């Protein structure tokens, strides 16, 4: 999974492709539908448009009934099942196990910023290639910083509502 991700890393080609798609609404819709199909079957993707998978052990946090993006709630059962769906494994238990196997537990300590609900249904790949997802999470666990930037107060990244 982590290796496959390299194919998606933003570069000049896919950035241009993303811009092209956004100029052609019908192509954008087809592309988004294909993304939904692929990520839906692989990860249960809900199309929040702001993909956190690379930092969550490829377990989709939006499939959590509380859509928690920063780790598990306190209601996980002793056997690791969800408090809402007792027959299902907690998304974050799956995330932790996978991250641990891959030596990526530190990813889970990064702080995930609040999402923009206007992005639901949009292509997260296009957003990613366009650099809009650069600030979805912090660069480190923040414990050594005095100020952890939650929101760009100069409001230039287009996320904060003005």
């Amino acid at each position: 999974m982590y290796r496959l991700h390299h194919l998606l890393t933003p570069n000049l080609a896919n950035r241009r492709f993303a811009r092209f798609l956004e100029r052609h609404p019908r192509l954008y819709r087809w592309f988004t539908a294909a993304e939904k199909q692929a990520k839906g079957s692989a990860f249960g993707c809900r199309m929040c448009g702001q993909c956190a998978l690379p930092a969550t052990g490829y377990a989709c946090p939006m499939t959590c009934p509380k859509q928690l993006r920063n780790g598990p709630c306190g209601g996980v059962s002793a056997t690791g099942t969800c408090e809402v769906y007792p027959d299902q494994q907690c998304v974050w238990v799956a995330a932790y196990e996978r991250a641990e196997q891959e030596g990526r537990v530190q990813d889970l300590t990064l702080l995930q910023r609040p999402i923009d609900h206007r992005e639901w249904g949009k292509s997260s790949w296009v957003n990613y290639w366009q650099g809009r997802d650069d600030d979805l999470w912090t660069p480190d666990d923040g414990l050594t910083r005095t100020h952890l930037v939650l929101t760009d107060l100069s409001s230039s990244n287009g996320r904060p509502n003005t």
Partner: protein
Amino acid sequence: MDMTPSDTTPASEGRLHTALRTGRFAVTAEIGPPRGADAGAIADKAEILRDWVDAANITDNQGSHTRLASWAGSILAMRSGVEPVMQLTTRDRNRIALQSDLISASAVGIPNVLMLSGDHPSFGDHPEAMPVFDLDSVQLIWAAKLMRDQGRLLSGKPVKPAPRWLIGAVENPFAPPLRFRAQRMGKKVAAGAEFIQTQFVFDLEIFTRWMAEVADLGLEQRCGVIAGVGPIRSVRAMEFMQSKVPGIQIPDQVVRRMRGVAAEQVAAEGMGLCVETIQALRQTTGVAGVHVMAFGHERVVPELLERAGIPSRTASAIGTGVDDDAR
């Protein structure tokens, strides 16, 4: 301290903040608001707890059951002389309403807020309700710190004057993935949590291991760890906690101990166990206090604390020298 609801001056340092800052063993408890429009219910519970706790949590529609609001309960608790910890869950409100409640809490003088995701609506009396969860607990704590320390909303708009309260959070050291729980507390500390209350400690072994991991990360130096405790009142109550309340884990030896005594002895045995747990927690390095949860049995809290050797707050306030436990 004059903390009537009409007092609009920002809260000065509260009792809980002082305890955590000075290293005096902190005691918090819980007041669950009533379902009815009954101010007296809060006053009655506050009356029992007043001399014994630094602060009491006012729960926010606990268990997803509709009850009197935590902000109103907090004001009522202050009227009765109990410092509130206003709980705020992300279950029922989006970021607009959450930030609004945080500003309001400071304006009426509520000195402590505690933020958590909250039980899912499916557990409550309105299982058909829309679960909101616009923010998660880490994001809400982060937003609170932004509001207080930088005087800004998530939108970037200024908040003047900025709110002032102590920022609290929760953690469950007993829920999988166990090895991630200290790091998860670390995320809350990085976001701005200054004290953390834990789920019921029935399993001291797991708790001690978690506490050691917390200390490895240096978190207990930056954030007061207040361990959750509470008495088991009956076998039925124990079974309810195990099966109906998410996240509470009771180890086999405790279950055996409670089942091993006659039915009329269970409450006394539960009290004894809770006293022993508090005593053990006081000896555990890094534990800054205890959070006593005795929902519906608030009257036993003073006895529990007294038997555990924790003097009433009035005794410590007049400096009897009884309260000598430093962290």
